[in-house]
């Protein structure tokens, strides 16, 4: 079983080609990194993989099931794409609780333990609107991993985090790979993240995805 199989993916906006002939396979629990400049198409690739966007050409399979705009099964992907989005007038815990309604794999205790692990207080009544960028980011990471999906996509997960929190996130990502057996596909502008965490690294440039040699 392949965790992810992207085959000849092409996506463009009007005449601008964002992704061209993208091929990416993840066959075992591993952490795969993608680096690329701003607007290089990393988030678009993630959106195509999660089915938030349809592609012009190509096929995407997650756990051997094809992803497209018309899939009628619940996705097996946990994802944080671009920026963490939540209902601004609810507390962090209530937001996660609402999202957990869609999954059988997560209960209140799980949510609390993930929040505590990332330094968030589940009992805090503060609404998300009043969260700092870092707190929001942590909440976004919890939302992405709490269902313990087999494929987790993290788009710049250490954005807005302090040094201490970055280390905690690194540990969490490693834990998801080793203990949960998840494959993690992540992007980062921070080369340290990529170096410390990733088993394989790809570069996304001019729409093409190229594997980086050692």
């Amino acid at each position, binding site marked *: 079983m392949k965790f992810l199989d992207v085959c000849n993916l092409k996506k463009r906006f009007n005449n601008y080609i964002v992704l061209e002939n993208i091929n990416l396979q993840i066959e075992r629990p591993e952490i795969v990194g993608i680096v690329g400049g701003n607007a290089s198409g990393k988030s678009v690739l993630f959106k195509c993989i999660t089915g*938030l*966007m349809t592609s012009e050409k190509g096929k995407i399979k997650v756990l051997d099931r094809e992803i497209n705009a018309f899939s009628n099964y619940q996705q097996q992907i946990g994802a944080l794409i671009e920026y963490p989005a939540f*209902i601004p007038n609810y507390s962090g815990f209530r937001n996660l609780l609402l999202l957990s309604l869609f999954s059988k794999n997560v209960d209140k205790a799980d949510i609390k333990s993930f929040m505590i692990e990332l330094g968030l207080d589940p009992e805090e009544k503060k609404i998300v609107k009043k969260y700092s960028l870092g707190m929001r980011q942590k909440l976004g990471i919890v939302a992405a991993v709490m269902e313990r999906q087999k494929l987790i996509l993290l788009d710049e997960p250490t954005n807005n985090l302090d040094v201490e929190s970055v280390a905690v996130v690194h540990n969490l990502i490693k834990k998801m790979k080793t203990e949960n057996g998840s494959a993690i596909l992540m992007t980062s502008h921070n080369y340290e993240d990529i170096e410390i965490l990733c088993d394989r690294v790809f570069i996304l440039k001019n729409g093409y995805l190229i594997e980086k040699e050692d």
Partner: protein
Amino acid sequence: MILNITKHNIFRVLTRKITYVAILIVIVSSICTLKRNSILYSLNNMDHVGGLNLFIYSSIKDNGFMSLLAPFVIMMVYPSIIFEDIQNHYFEQLHLRIPNKNFYLLHTLQSFFISGGVYVIAHVITLVICCCVSPENSIMVTFLNGPFSDFYYKSLTLYCIVFILHSFLFGGVMGILGMGLAMHLHNKCILWTLPTLVYYLGLDLLALFPEKSQYLMIFIIPLLPYEITTFNIPDIVHISQLLVITIIGMVLVLTGIRNNDKDFNLYNLIGRIN
């Protein structure tokens, strides 16, 4: 999945103050209408006309206040939630957890049922209040024209139920329209007011057509479709007008999806369903 998204959305609707404001608007407008109608139709002994008559005179007959606010009330509740979710990208957070094929369909259905439900709750509360104020049996005290008036002459209870069902239907189709608009607009004030403006433009639009073609045009141009006592039109015409609003709403939803993702197309969707 349907149960999950229903629980999710009902929780959100019930935890918003604006929902209760919307219900209150419907009830207060009924009280205002009753006050006016009691003078207009000389209902001196309001305590003895019966709860159903009170309901008819408060919520149905010449309820101009509600006619004015009908689309507005709907836009305040569920379409506003969709609007906010799209603006702050929470829609994508939900999309990740709901099968692609069902995502927009489920949201459209939720929009229909929740928006229609607002009217049902408000009218049932009003009906209960009317029956408490005047617990006597209701007898027919007036003549009514317009869609569904046949039911009035059969049974007052049946007429009240049909009216509530009609309000549910109206709320539902306006909910779909609201969802479609929420996917295109970037300003909540416009979302709240645009359907009300369009709602009134129907009359002016109809006047633009030659008199002969107006008999046909009333099938497709909605004429204050919340009101069922103002225009004496057949039931089928009224239902057809609601259907037109639904179709416009659906088209807006589909174009909204397409705006978000240019590679999405209807031909592809139909092909997959087949």
